[in-house]
């Protein structure tokens, strides 16, 4: 639009920033953070990865996506085919209201599968993804600190 108005004036400098590429980049970005596991009581059994990064304490329960070691995908406790995941999430009132969900994936799930699931969530309008990690085995710094303080 900005360019059309400068017909004939070859030397006129474009003073506006073209925001289109920037918007594209923003749309691809997901906000990702770590969440501790104890809050999330899930029916689906997975071996969570251990992480030493300081996790976020989840204040309220968000929708949980699980991927087990056999690469089966679950919304909550209900198994969902990967092809259906985007539709299910796009129609899900909870996911659409929160724009956030927690990913509860087994540590042995290939990175590619995790990305597929996250991409489906992102296409369905989810902008924030919390990665659930295991605080008990991993070095949960804040917890250790508390224990020491008690002594």
């Amino acid at each position, binding site marked *: 639009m900005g360019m059309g108005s400068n017909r004939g004036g070859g030397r006129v400098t474009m003073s506006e920033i073209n925001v289109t590429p920037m918007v594209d980049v923003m749309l691809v970005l997901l906000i990702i953070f770590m969440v501790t596991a104890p809050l999330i009581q899930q029916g689906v059994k997975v071996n969570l990865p251990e992480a030493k990064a300081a996790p976020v304490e989840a204040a309220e329960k968000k*929708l949980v996506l699980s991927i087990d070691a056999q690469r089966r995908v679950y*919304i*909550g*406790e*209900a198994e969902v085919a990967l092809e259906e995941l985007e539709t*299910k999430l796009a*129609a899900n*009132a*909870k996911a659409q209201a929160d724009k956030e969900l927690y990913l509860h994936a087994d540590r042995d799930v290939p990175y590619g599968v995790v990305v597929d699931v996250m991409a489906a969530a992102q296409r369905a309008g989810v902008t924030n993804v919390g990665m659930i990690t295991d605080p008990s085995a991993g070095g949960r710094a804040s917890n250790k600190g508390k224990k020491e303080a008690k002594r």
Partner: protein
Amino acid sequence: MNVKALLLSLLLPLAALAQAPVIQISGANFRPLPLAVSAPLVQGDEAKAPAGKLDETLMYDLRASGLFQMLDRASFLADAKEGVTAGSIKFARWADVGAEALVKYTVAQENGELRVEARVFNVGSGREEFKTTHGAPVAVPHKLAHQVADAIYRHFTREPSPFLSRITYVRKSGTNRDVWVADWDGRNAKQVTKGGINLLPALGPDGQVAYTSYRQGQPDLFLQQEEGETVRLKTAEGQMATGVAFSPDGKRVAYSLADGESAQVWVADTNGGNRKRLTDTRYGINSSPSWSPDGKRIAFVSNRGGSPQVYVMNTDGSGVKRLTFQGNYNQTPDWSPRGDLIAFTARDERNAFDLFAVNVETGKITRLTQDQGNNEEPAFSPNGRLILFTSTRNGTPQLFVMTAEGNNQMPLPGQEKGAYLTPDWGR
């Protein structure tokens, strides 16, 4: 205080609590309740087709009520064969789609009758809150759906729903304008008049239809009993009568009677007796009467102040009070059955017709529609929670419904070609 009285005083608040509505409809704290309605469990192949129609009507009723955030079935995570009792339902799966309440129902067909058993569950507590069973002939699944929707509405609000009421309207077809009567959602429509020009129908409390017709050359009032013949209301000798409205008890009608110079509001018994003129302006128009729910006052339009404005008066013509002071073209008032509001059509500063409501006591005006074609002819539901109106947002005028606050505007389903005009909602 003896023990009995003490016990009673302890029990009373509990009883009141049990009767408290789940959804407080009015007030600043209103929030639509996220409701999941599971697809019906149909017993037997023959019940599948009527169950589909029933489901469609039930879903429309619940959605149009404005009380619920109807959750998309595409998101549901429960097993399609999940049972309908609390013990067999995995409530976590319903909580995961955002549901706070869940409706499950079964449809069965026996001896030409369709039977529905519906249950309402609280998703958070995992408890069954309410169960209702209904039956109707297979030929009228819509009727059954309205009954089920009514029971669910009553459970959540402790007040009657609008779903069992009837509406009337004019449909244009070719050069004809005919009066129709239909279920509240426009389904099950029956043609009342056969050709000619018929206008401004009204529904009485016992199903009577009154309307203005040009069948005898000049506009005149006609009254049709629900299952009976049509009689001409003997109210209009030699003059033009239009715009009839039934009193809340159905015994009186108000209408407008025009001669060469002016139009005045009259009231009469439904058989034409006890005629009385209520307005008396030398020139100008007084028309479009609408009764207050207590039957003691009438809202009407008058241009005595220079432009058409909404006025109210007592039913003996005394105590005339102007209600609208904004805008220069306010018409077609409809008095809410709750008594507090009068909805009307106004032409705004951009020459678009839109709906507004005025508070009868305070005169405060609220806008109900905006920026979507011309919106006209409001008619309140019998419980005062919904408003039926016409809108040109999709081209020709069609019937729409919204909440009394102007939210959740939806077209009535299944409307055919040709304009739909001047709806009235039976009280």
